């Protein structure tokens, strides 16, 4: 029944039938049939894609796939757009992390990049980055000036979930103790605040769209920092955002946590320097040995 003579219309009918059958099987809780129909549907959809593409060869956007250079953002500044857009993903991430100077998750990297740098950096493109970097390092150690590495957990020096760092940073900064998420959060707020202040002096090179995004990002940090936002004005109106005030408030709370966080991070770093190879220091300890707490079981 899946012959190649099927017209696009016939195929569409079959797709509709498959979807209906799939839903009926889901209602019947028939797991085996659901799996089978999902496969059939998937095959028919691919077939449809091929046929549709064949019938409309002019579909221009099909050319762009994940490995191709990012399309130029309409928001990119007028000057040097092509150059900025052609920056490889790892360099875009490096650029962003260098602004933040703390470990960051893909979502934050994307948001900061979007606010302060030209070109696009979808979070989906960060997914494979860590693996690629490690592979590159292992095939030719230290061939590159820097690597993008995971942050390390203080207790096991294992790779921390989702957090990216730069290999050239001091090890202390790349390690996550119990207080580090808060310290890094507050640090991030100060960095975004000062970036916002200096970028707003750039004039037209920084687009209003990007500025709005930067302000929205800073505000999302400010709501969780005591004293970072002014009092609400009228009912329903959001309090004004003052980057200086956010930065000062973040620094004020930072002073409370810095000492204990520094102690925890440097203890772990010392331990890491004593016990781990360079590769392990960069990409994390995969053996599940627990520091400090081997006696607990």
């Amino acid at each position, binding site marked *: 029944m899946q012959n190649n003579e099927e017209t696009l219309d016939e195929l569409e009918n079959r797709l509709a039938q498959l979807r209906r059958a799939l839903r009926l099987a889901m*209602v019947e809780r028939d797991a085996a049939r659901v799996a089978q129909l999902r496969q059939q549907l998937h095959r028919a959809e691919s077939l449809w894609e091929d046929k549709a593409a064949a019938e409309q060869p002019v*579909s*221009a956007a099909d050319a762009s796939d994940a490995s191709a250079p990012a399309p130029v953002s309409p928001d990119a500044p007028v000057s040097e757009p092509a150059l900025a857009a052609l920056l490889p993903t790892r360099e875009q991430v490096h650029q962003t992390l260098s602004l933040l100077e703390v470990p960051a998750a893909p979502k934050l990297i994307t948001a900061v990049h979007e606010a302060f740098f030209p070109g696009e950096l979808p979070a989906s493109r960060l997914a494979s980055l860590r693996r690629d970097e490690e592979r590159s390092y292992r095939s030719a150690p230290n061939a590159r000036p820097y690597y993008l590495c995971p942050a390390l957990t203080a207790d096991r020096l294992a790779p921390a979930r989702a957090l990216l760092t730069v290999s050239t940073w001091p090890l202390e900064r790349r390690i996550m103790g119990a207080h580090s998420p808060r310290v890094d959060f507050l640090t991030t707020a100060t960095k975004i605040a000062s970036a916002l202040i200096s970028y707003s002096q750039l004039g037209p090179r920084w687009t209003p769209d990007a500025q709005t995004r930067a302000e929205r990002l800073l505000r999302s940090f400010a709501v969780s920092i005591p004293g970072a936002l002014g009092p609400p004005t009228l009912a329903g109106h959001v309090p004004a955002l003052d980057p200086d005030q956010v930065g000062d408030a973040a620094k004020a709370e930072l002073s409370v946590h810095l000492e204990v966080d520094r102690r925890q991070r440097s203890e772990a770093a010392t331990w890491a320097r004593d016990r781990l190879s360079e590769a392990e220091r960069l990409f994390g300890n995969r053996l599940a040995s627990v520091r400090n707490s081997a006696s607990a079981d």
Partner: protein
Amino acid sequence: MSSLAALARLHATRQGRAERLRQVRHHHLVDEPLVLVILTMAGEAAAPLACMVGTGRRQSTLLTVTQPRNRDQRRAFYAQLAAVILPHIRRRENTLQQLPARPGKPPRQRCADAPQIIVANHATVDYLSLVGRSIRFQGPPNTTETDPSIALLGRWLTFFAERAEYPGSSMLLPLTAQLAAHWATGQSILEDESLSKLLAWIEPPAGLTGVQAALRSENPVLFPPAGPATDPTFDAVELEPRMITHQQALASGDHLTAARTATELQDALASQLRPTWNQVWDGLALLRAIPQAARSVRRWEDDRDHFTSHSLHITRGGAPQPVHDQAVDAARRLARLERAIHMFEDEQALDDPFVLAERRTVGTAFAGVVVAREPDRQVTSAKGRRILRPRFTIRTEDPPPIARDQDLVDPERPRTIVRVREVLPEQQDMHLITVEVTAGMGSVSRPAADAVPELDELVCYTAWPSQWGAAEFPSREQTPWTHTGPSAPQTFTDLSEAEQT
């Protein structure tokens, strides 16, 4: 539930189809109701996916959203919905008439017609209330949230949702409640909340019993839910993949794919709405076939009064309904609802022998034959005057009346009011009830001829509908805004009781 209604459910099961529970229809139906079927995105508080709206089975407007989480699309949807609903309301507002003064009442204004919205079920009423709450306040000036038509739509939806809570009001009717009031099915009250299962019992397809038809209509693929919630398998198979493709196509500038998936989404959503749309019109036709109760005319006037005063409130620049339901207002509202419930129930009993019979099973009405009478009985009033107070005694097999200090009336002789004076158990299951005529008996010199029924005559007494003598509360529109608040659906839990943080 009365034992009569409960028994009717058993008969419905035995006969394989629903059994009528009412002789007349107690809600008004306008010639041109606005039917609204709406679907919402699961997991979101109020993010409409699509709706079908219109005044005729073949006069529908379909509105869809390709990404309900997107604020701008949501507002575009509301603006389109406002463009359908507001002109419909406006045409009724234009029927404003001047009513002449009546004794005790100054001249006033009332719209000759009022809008009526029909939805599938109670969940849709609650949903419209939420939508009303989410859009009735205008955003800050000069933003995208300033569109006055959206805020106005929100105010009207809030108004309709509040009226829907009011017993006897016909401004916003959930069809399942209407059908379940008029027919007893052979299933549970919970199952009666499904429009397709109700209809399955009321008009089972040829060859199927009600229970078989209801079972068949439980399949959400064959019978899409009436909303606002969609079927999860629809979300998973039809909706989500297309939404994702659509978003990706938009992001990558692939306009062809974006347009195609938008059309597909629209078709998919229409396929979920259309069966319910047709069912609502089927259900409406069933209701229309039932003759209208006499007293529903007065209740519809009441609706038109409320509609008129809300319309004037808006025209005069009045504020939208506030968010907080203050304690005082909540108490007043409860009292008002309580009175409205009694009034509505009492009135239905006078209009409908089925309701009267239901009341006879629970002791709020009784019927029987007259076994003794004293038509000339006189007593001395507190002022020392001789007055006529006829009494008569009724033998009944009904459970004896519960309330004593209540005015009772026989629907067949509405000019005479009586009160229960004595209840005596007779033989098994029988009671002798002596009542005294307290109004409509005439005077000693000129007794009313038919105030006391003859011996062996069959009589039936039920509560006389009255406002219970309570002072009229100011209507919501005449109440200062500090004392009004929206009504929350009763299924909601007040979290402010807990330690709010």
